[in-house]
């Protein structure tokens, strides 16, 4: 059985609040943002003056002024996860990474992170954007346990504010930058054990969310929102049917897309606010880093026997879930 031994998250210091977005004069205001997506602030690796002056019309320029990169955030998150797991980088036998904003297109982001951490082991990217936490856990659960090393470092990191066109009122309000890392072991027990994993995709709808290698993020917002709510509810229902979930005790973490969407989901499944962990309101949508970053933030609060249902959706279109249980 897989266990998670430690987690870490990292975000840049820069902050875009709703007043800043309102000041861009792109047809939106704080009230509209709070009503539609419920996000108050987002973390960014870009200087605010750069965004204000250029609107990031040419994302190439963003790389030149950015205060940190995908790799740098990923390394910070990994270092925290290693400390929590009580191991060092030299213990890692495999590193897998998910990113939709890699620092280079080749080699893989995992390779750059491995080089930065001094890990000379297998390192490659396993990618499906936002549902990365479910993909990585489901991918690792495919393996015969003896074929995995003692410690696997999983990472999801993205600096999507560097790919946002800040003339677009919807995209401007959504995205934040962040990285999350977690250490998985097939043999060593840890704070969380993995009870169930699930991952699925519908490639026929993959054009609904696109990040051009050289350009901006764009999506079919309405289609993605409807898909996200519907699919997340299905994922939770599947877990409710197969496991004894008690929402007075257990925890739900969804894809950190937007707060309004998450409220629709928790209302549907009657999940009380106290048992819904999230960080999208203050960090923004961090793509695949969002859900594991939330779990990392609450690491010290996880109680023995408490189940944590993580249901994530996104580009691909793809979706998945992980059911975890606190170990006492």
């Amino acid at each position, binding site marked *: 059985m897989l266990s998670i031994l430690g987690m870490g998250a990292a975000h840049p210091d820069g902050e875009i609040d709703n007043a800043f977005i309102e000041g861009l004069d792109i047809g939106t205001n704080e009230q509209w943002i709070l009503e539609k997506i419920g996000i108050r602030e987002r973390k960014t690796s870009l200087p605010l003056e750069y965004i204000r002056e250029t609107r990031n019309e040419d994302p*190439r320029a963003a*790389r030149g002024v950015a205060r940190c990169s995908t790799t740098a955030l990923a390394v910070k998150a990994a270092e925290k996860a290693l400390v929590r797991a009580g191991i060092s980088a030299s213990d890692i036998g495999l590193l897998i990474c998910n*990113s*939709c*904003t*890699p*620092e*280079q*297109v*080749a*080699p*893989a982001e995992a*390779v*750059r992170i*491995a*080089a930065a951490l*001094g*890990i*000379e*082991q*297998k*390192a*490659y*990217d*396993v*990618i*499906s*954007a936002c549902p990365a936490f479910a*993909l990585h856990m489901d*991918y690792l*659960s*495919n*393996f*015969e346990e003896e*074929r*995995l090393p003692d410690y696997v470092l999983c990472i999801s990191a993205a600096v999507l504010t560097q790919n946002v066109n800040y003339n677009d009122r919807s995209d401007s309000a959504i995205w934040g930058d962040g990285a999350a890392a977690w250490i998985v072991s097939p043999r060593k027990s840890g704070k969380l054990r993995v009870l169930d994993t699930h*991952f*699925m*995709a*519908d*490639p*026929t*709808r*993959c*054009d609904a*969310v*696109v*990040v*051009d*290698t*050289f*350009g901006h993020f764009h999506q079919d917002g309405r289609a993605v929102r409807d898909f996200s709510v519907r699919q997340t509810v299905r994922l939770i229902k599947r877990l409710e049917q197969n496991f004894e979930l008690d929402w007075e005790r257990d925890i739900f973490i969804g894809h950190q897309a937007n707060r309004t969407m998450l409220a629709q989901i928790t209302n549907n499944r009657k999940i009380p606010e106290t048992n819904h962990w999230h960080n999208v309101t203050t960090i923004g949508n961090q793509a695949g880093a969002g859900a594991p970053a939330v779990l990392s933030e609450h690491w010290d609060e996880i109680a023995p026997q408490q189940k944590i249902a993580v249901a994530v959706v996104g*580009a*691909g279109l*793809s979706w998945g879930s992980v059911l975890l249980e606190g170990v006492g």
Partner: protein
Amino acid sequence: MTQLYLSSFGFAQPETRLRSLSLGEFSSLLEEQGGATRDLRTALAPSYLEETFNEDPFQRGEEIFQETPTSLGERSARAALEGAKVSTEDLGLILGASSTPLQTTPVEAQRIGKQLGVKIPAYEINAGGTDLLLHIENLLSWKRDRIPAYTLSVSSNIPTSRIHYKKGSERFRFSDAAGAFLLSPEKGRYRIEHVQSEFSPAEAQQFSVELYGHLRYEENVVGAFLQDRFSAVLGTVRSQISERAVIIESNLEPSRHERLQESFSGSYQWRRFLSQTGDLLGATPAAALSLFESDEEAEQIVILTGGIGLVAGVLILTREGE
């Protein structure tokens, strides 16, 4: 341990040959070097390349591409499916990879999945030079009940879209192509005897593609790495290689290839095609089979491949009876 078979494979290249284009000094040098024998292909539109030499690789209108990683990947995938007479409905998983994607999201596996019209898990496992080998290595490590009846593994790359055709030795080396493997735990044309890949992240920057830049390839470092690792990996699998095996290696320049061959003595038949097709990145194993499958001596095929990562690996296949 799970048994895995290569049911079929597909290989696709763009139609446009670099030697057919008017690229000034590059064309002259290619001819002087016997360019007619190095059949480099490009997915870029001839008019675009002749006008701009791809000096600025950020020109990204659809009109500059005759093919994309997705269209090449789809063609190679369909060839693999047809080769095994397997329908898209029989697929259970697509693993994709590209070191030169035009979009980071969705990933190449999902774009190819869309073209094939399938609703199945599809995601990227990107290992640079050994994409197809890593996909096999993964499946061989999975629980039997997690391996679908058919998995499509695709590596599709257009490195010419990241090369400046006015300067650099890279312009003489790389060619665009996609390779696809159709893998099954039940049956296939080849039984997979062994697969292995090794990574060296510390040296990775010697072979890289900047997000907003051109491809960089340091032959001295990468060539030495590959020669050294190929030699080491052959040493570890010597007992599994038949004296009648055909060993295919197509990353090393001739002098390095000769030294590798000398370091691994035996009655093996060696094949190489770098001087014919150029460096095809992750599609190399599929190209090797495409070129040498009809080789009657090839009861056992050993493919050495590597590159971006830096990675190096070996795949040993034994032909199954009809």
